[in-house]
């Protein structure tokens, strides 16, 4: 590891330079701002500044009905609307003890895994964009993403903000024709992945820029509550799909890819491998999809009249493995149609905790790819 400290080689006296990254910057993935102190091009300190997209999701959710918060969750992490819905539905179902029919469970898993593909593809595109491969990888990634979004639009009615999950099921059933479309997409996907991988995985520039950059030790990763691919890239096996076995994930056979070093390259490669596993889950889910209801019969009246839905007094914490990490919802009910408290445990925000540790000692250009490999979405960071 070439993490030389600037302080050690003080032959030349250099002045530190304070610069301000963002909130308008092409590679901060939104309105993220960093306050960086540089010695030459080496980072001495880096302080993230949050709140430029603080949209008061939690305050608004406390003023509206439970179901009305569902479309707001879409806009948390706007790349993965389906998994955001999933977490929230799970939390409220726990709060009010609602059963979900099996077909709906299967559909949820299918949607969540498709979303994982969308997210990881977009991430890889943007990461390479940050590396300097301007826009070409994004073009490839978005080409495949559009195919999945078309499916989402057909099934849920919207490309990005799907609003597909309901407490006790999903909004709409999927027809056989749509299932065949998903099947076709899933079968064709590994070919695209292999093509993408052939272009990138052994690419010399990618390897040189990413390997041994931003190494994250497993101890720090656990201590700083990191989750998702960032944690697993450091070699810690913790995937809520295996640990909590929520929904139907105990029925599917899949593995958890782990990184060896915890550098930026591992964080990139773990995601590529995760996409392969998602394809595996999708195949099994499509094969096993049973016939039946997509909504719990008891919950049907609340779709038309969400104000009548009053969970019993209590609190619940529901969490899922979103593509970015542990997405948790803490909901407190006071027995009225609006929640008393609604909190989102956002993986993007908490994963940024270690940004300074990863960046100090590296060059300024590395900070951008380290940030890119942590994979944040500002809607979720600031909420």
């Amino acid at each position, binding site marked *: 590891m070439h993490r030389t400290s600037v302080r050690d080689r003080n032959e030349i006296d250099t002045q530190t330079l304070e610069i301000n990254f963002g909130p308008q910057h092409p590679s901060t993935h939104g309105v993220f701002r960093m306050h960086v102190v540089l010695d030459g091009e080496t980072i001495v300190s880096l302080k993230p500044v949050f709140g430029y997209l603080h949209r008061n999701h939690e305050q608004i959710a406390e003023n509206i009905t439970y179901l009305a918060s569902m479309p*707001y969750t879409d806009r948390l992490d706007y790349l993965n609307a389906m998994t955001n819905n999933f977490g929230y539905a799970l939390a409220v179902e726990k709060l009010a003890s609602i059963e979900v029919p099996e077909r709906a469970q299967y559909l949820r898993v299918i949607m969540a895994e498709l979303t994982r593909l969308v997210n990881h593809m977009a991430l890889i595109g943007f990461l390479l964009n940050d590396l300097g491969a301007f826009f070409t990888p994004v073009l490839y990634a978005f080409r495949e993403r*559009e195919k999945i979004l078309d499916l989402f639009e057909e099934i849920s009615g919207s490309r*990005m903000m799907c609003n597909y999950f309901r407490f006790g099921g999903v909004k709409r059933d999927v027809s056989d024709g749509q299932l065949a479309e998903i099947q076709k997409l899933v079968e064709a996907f590994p070919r695209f992945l292999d093509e993408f991988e052939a272009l990138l995985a052994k690419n010399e520039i990618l390897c040189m820029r990413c390997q041994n950059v931003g190494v994250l030790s497993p101890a720090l990763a656990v201590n700083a509550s990191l989750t998702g691919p960032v944690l697993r890239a450091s070699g810690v096996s913790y995937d809520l799909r295996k640990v909590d076995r929520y929904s139907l994930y105990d029925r599917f056979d899949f593995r958890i890819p782990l990184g060896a070093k915890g550098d930026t390259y591992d964080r990139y490669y773990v995601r590529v491998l995760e996409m392969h596993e998602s394809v595996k889950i999708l195949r099994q889910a499509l094969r096993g999809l049973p016939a039946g209801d997509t909504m719990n019969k008891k919950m049907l009246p609340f779709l038309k009249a969400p104000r009548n839905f009053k969970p019993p007094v*209590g609190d619940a914490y529901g969490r899922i493995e979103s593509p970015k990490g542990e997405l948790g919802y803490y909901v407190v009910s006071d027995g009225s149609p609006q929640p008393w408290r609604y909190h989102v445990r956002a993986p993007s925000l908490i994963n940024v905790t270690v940004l300074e540790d990863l960046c100090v000692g590296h060059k300024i250009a590395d900070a951008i790819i380290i940030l890119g490999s942590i994979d944040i979405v500002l809607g979720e960071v600031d909420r």
Partner: protein
Amino acid sequence: MNLTKNISSVCDRLKGELMKEGVFLTTLTQLYNWGRRSSVWPLQFGLACCAIEMIAAACARFDIARFGSELFRASPRQADLMIISGTVTKKMAPAVVRLYNQMPEPKYLITMGACAIAGGPFIDGYNVLRGIDRYLPVDVHLPGCPPRPEALLYGLMELQKKIDSQTIEGAEWYRKGLKREFPVPELGPYGLVPKYNPEVWQPRAQDSRKQKYGLPILTGKKDKAPELETAPAA
């Protein structure tokens, strides 16, 4: 120097006839606008969800390059068009106004999505600005949450129509004494100071939203907290 106003014109039919014979007639204004319209460079500036649709519009499927706007510039000094793609929060608003001020004339502004137009679904938030038109003049409003990439292309075409309608003589950026630099609001103790710029925007006399839906902010209206200890266990 006194210039006579250019009022000479050739009717379109004659122009068409001449074009068949290989004679191409145009006016300076048309030529000028054709050039400007075909190379509107947007500022690479994504705020929230709509930014993803903006990127999608720049990608292969929707291909904003067909309209000459594929060159997203990271610096406001090189940009002609600002697409406000997403929620403008109160913390972000001063930066947005400053960026707009830094763009060279002639400059245009598209608000993409409901949030940028009026706060959208987040209108009741304590940190959400209810529309960027409170501080900046907007050329094209683009509703949707988020608008599809096609909608962005349509918005761009509308903007091109607007550019076509402008003339060199009437162009406001050549006029003397015109205020095109907008004061940057400050962060105050409860929100932005001022809450809006009355020269750009003023509230409507009748708030139809209040009349239709009542006041949606309920915080503080509930006076009984739930007691979790005594609640039956789930």
